[in-house]
């Protein structure tokens, strides 16, 4: 079961006002992140994973571009009801975010140390010297060798993995309760990826910090997360514990994703199965079940009416599919 919830997103809808009209990259997403839990969010590109994450911090320009509906409950508060000023004190302080590309997430004109000090002083009344000392501590915490020296260096003097560590140090500066990691390892090579993921897990255990880990890599989810949410076209299609979901995926999309992961013991001659088709653009959302055009199980019911996210009896898993029961039976029979 889930731990005591820290973040509860209910029926979140994010609208973008574009020249072609209103689109919603996040369309009625509900999910929970428990205290001290690592939750993975997976899906193809364009499924609204990042948009969901950025909506939590309300990073989209609400004056012109975007509007939100629903509820993002964080502790006692609903983040969507906060004033911009209150929101600023949440960002980086209670909820932090790290980005996909550590190469461009640091300002090239300021030293590493200065950038950590800036975040510290943004949210805490702390002296410059003390903040500098704390910055070195944070760099040490994230496993950067010779942190005193590194603090005086500029981003271009560091490798990609080091820069992602620095980003994590900045994100951790104010001891947030929730870290949103938006594909933190995509731009890094494999060995560094493993180190960064280990670091995130380690910090999660040691600091009791919750993590929302966005990725398209199912292997990463299996390694690090306790629960996982699968998204397709701005909606949650399946969610559950990593164990259940990997053992018995119920939504056809999840099944497709799992099959398309190459296996070491797989047949090398056979072509790797892929989910057919591609994610349609947001202004051409199919009626009925959104996955129906790409789904091998789709029938007339799927094409005409949209299923709701429903808990499967006797499990912790929620799934958005008319045929979930049948699929569950099929999979069990195999």
């Amino acid at each position, binding site marked *: 079961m889930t731990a005591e919830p820290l973040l509860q997103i209910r029926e979140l809808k994010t609208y973008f006002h574009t020249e072609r009209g209103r689109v919603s990259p996040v369309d009625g997403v509900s999910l929970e992140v428990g205290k001290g839990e690592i939750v993975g969010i997976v899906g193809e590109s364009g499924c609204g994973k990042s948009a969901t994450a950025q909506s939590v*911090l309300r*990073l989209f320009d609400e004056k*012109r571009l975007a509007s939100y509906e629903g509820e993002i409950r964080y502790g006692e508060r609903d983040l969507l009801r906060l004033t911009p000023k209150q929101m*600023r*004190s*949440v*960002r*980086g*302080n209670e909820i*932090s*975010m790290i*980005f996909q*590309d550590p190469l*461009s*997430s*640091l*300002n*090239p*004109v*300021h030293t590493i140390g200065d950038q950590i000090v*800036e*975040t510290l002083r*943004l*949210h805490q009344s702390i002296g410059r010297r003390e903040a500098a000392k704390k910055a070195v501590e944070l760099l040490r915490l994230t*496993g950067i*060798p*010779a942190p005193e*020296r590194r603090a005086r260096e500029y981003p271009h*003097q560091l*490798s990609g*993995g*080091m820069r992602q560590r620095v*980003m994590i140090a*900045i*994100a951790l500066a104010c001891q947030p309760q929730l870290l949103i990691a938006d594909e933190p390892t995509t731009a890094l090579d494999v*060995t*560094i990826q493993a*180190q960064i993921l280990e670091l995130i897990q380690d910090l999660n255990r040691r600091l009791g910090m919750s993590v929302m880990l966005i990725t398209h890599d199912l292997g990463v989810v299996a390694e690090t997360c306790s629960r996982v949410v699968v998204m397709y076209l701005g909606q949650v299609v399946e969610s559950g514990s990593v164990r259940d979901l990997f053992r018995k995926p119920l939504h056809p999309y999840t099944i497709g994703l799992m099959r398309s992961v190459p296996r070491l013991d797989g047949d090398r001659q056979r072509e790797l199965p892929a989910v057919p088709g591609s994610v349609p653009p947001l202004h051409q959302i199919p009626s009925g079940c959104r996955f129906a055009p790409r789904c091998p199980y789709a029938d007339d019911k799927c094409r005409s009416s949209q299923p709701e996210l429903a808990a499967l009896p006797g499990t912790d898993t929620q799934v958005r599919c008319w045929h979930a029961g049948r699929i569950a039976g099929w999979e069990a029979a195999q």
Partner: protein
Amino acid sequence: MTSLTSLDSATSLDAAEDAAENSADSITTADERSPAELAAGRLRLRRENRRLFVRRFLANKSAVIGSALLLLVAVVSLLAPWLTGRDPYALEVADRLKPPGAEYPLGTDNFGRDLLTRVLYGTRMSAEIGFVVALSSSLLGLVVGLYAGYVKWLDQILMRVMDGLFAFPAILLAIAMMAALGPSVGNLMICLTIVFVPSIARLVRSSTLVAKEQTYVEAMHALGASHNRIVWKHLMPAALSPLIVQGSFVFAEAIIVEAALSFLGAGIPAPTPSLGNLLSDGKLFIYNSSWMTIFPGLALVVVVLAMNLFGDGLRDLLDPHARRAGKKR
């Protein structure tokens, strides 16, 4: 060629240190080298960098000549009262229109005033106006450009106003404003500042538009930084180096426009020595007493050339792309 080889040795030194540090990265152990060793290495690297910069500066002819001339202009402007013992306003009616000679190195004008003294004071006045105008239009242009680049709805308003100002030829606009405000040094500075703000604002806006799309700006936003902090701490530095270069060109341009305005009688009021006024005085006597025109003209050329060469050199030093393009040519 020599500068190239030493550059290579420095980069390989860098690479060696990088490699050493990256291997430390993967195993996450403390650095093996002693602090003293590290400090010595760092000092060596810094000294090497400084030497490289000096060499690059010296290799840049226009920067060297420009700085030397600029230094001369600065010395002349600051020390004008002490360089000549004379008063630029003192009339010596008996010595009217004296050609250059032992007593008056550059001759005298039609009122018997010492031309050397007046040229020195005129240079001082021009440099002062150029400096103030460059500084104030840079500051104003920086503010306008940053906010126009960052705040979408302000962009339309601010930049349309800037375009409006840009539409007039600089001198015409300055004459019109001087006519409205009345001739005085202060008003001239205000007018010239207004004339030069648009070019600076456009430049700053363009670099802001680029910088604000960078991930680090979004990251700062996600860390809870306010818009003003993002603008001043994270967008402003990106605009700074083109701004400095453009500022130095505005300096030169302002001096030319000031001289033109004074020459036309729309600038600094008459008895005050400014290069434009001196040229204007000289034009009546250009056939008989050409020194009255030649020397202020030369001074103007030197000042403007100094600023332009300096600005060119500065751009080459600050902007790596321009430097590379220059080498190809």
